[in-house]
């Protein structure tokens, strides 16, 4: 492939990383707020955060491999 044909792929990869980063960052942020409010629910919140993060990361990786 010509070098210029790589540009859309790289831009796409960057967009995917922005999307996944924003999503997981938001989840992490709200999880930390929730833990600060109720430290005794830390385990449940951590579990839920990991599930949501894994789901978003799954899509992110699938899109990354397609680009």
């Amino acid at each position, binding site marked *: 492939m010509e070098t210029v044909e790589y540009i859309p792929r790289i831009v796409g990869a960057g967009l995917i990383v922005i999307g996944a980063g924003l999503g997981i960052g938001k989840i992490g942020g709200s999880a930390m707020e929730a833990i600060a409010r109720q430290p005794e629910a830390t385990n449940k919140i951590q*579990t839920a955060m*990991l*599930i949501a993060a*894994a*789901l978003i*990361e*799954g*899509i992110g*990786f*699938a899109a*990354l*491999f397609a680009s």
Partner: protein
Amino acid sequence: MLTKKIFSILVFTFLITPFAVFAEGAHTELSELSESEKKAAQKEYIDHHLQDSYDFGIWHAYGIEFPLPVILIDEGLHVFMSSEFHHGESVVESNGKYYKVFHSKIYRTDAEGTINMDESTHHPSNVKPLDLSITKNVFTIILISILIFWLFKSVAKSYANSMIPSKKGRLLEPLVLFVRDEIAIPNIGEKYYGKYMSYLLTVFFFIWFLNLAGMTPLGIGVTNNIAVTFGLAIMTFLITQFTAKKDYWGHIFWMPGVPVFMKVVLAPIELLGVFIKPFALMIRLYANMTAGHVVMMSLIALLYLFENWLARGAFLGLTLFLSILELLVAFLQAYIFTMLTALYFGAAVAEHDDHH
């Protein structure tokens, strides 16, 4: 003291992985190639390391390897050792048919070993026989399965004598209880979790041990193979469908508690979801593991590209940190796979009075 020594040896083994991966690369004259040739050679090396191979090479540069049997079904059964391929150089003749290895795949050729490249797809257009050989991945899966079987069988037997298990059991018992109390019971519920425990435990330890094996310097990439993760996802899919209760299908096609026209709109989406959820399981595990390996190997390749020793030191530190992170990812991916599987099982056996 002994356990401390064993532990430090184990940690050392994992930490020298980055070096061992490219130890063989030192034997090719990388410094003499030009910049783009170096990059191409490194790309090919990385690709070769991520793929399956027909012999089990522990250290190719020093010749520590042993060949594995190649079993092909191509109008008859052909069995021979992969050492006859001589690392992809020679053509093997078996029962009148000739075979050659090209980019880690076996093709049927003629006596000279011609590979006809298809112009449009850049893939060989030779016929591929049905390949049932014991490759490196298959061998590793068999080895890890025997290891897990022996480990848990001996721990289970030690429960016959006392409430506290044997020494290995003391490491494994909290893990098994973790799978039961944190993954199975919260997601599936008290009533039905027993049916699924054996599958959840198997999947958890199988994926975890396979991911860890991929981190060793041996260059075994079992979960890097999408066919392996496809097999695991298919098992989850089949178990979910065949042990589901009537409420599960009711929720997919006719979701209760929602106006009628929404039910009609939701039905195809839910049906797609039934297939997409295991598909995402497969992609998640495959992509996480492969991406981790590719990034690690690319960082080490950068070590060879730069001449500046400060840059090399920085990349070495980064690779070390990434290797430690990969160990965490190995466990995390096993946990996520098992937890999502338990979630799908829980949705399958959910009873009607649970949540509405």
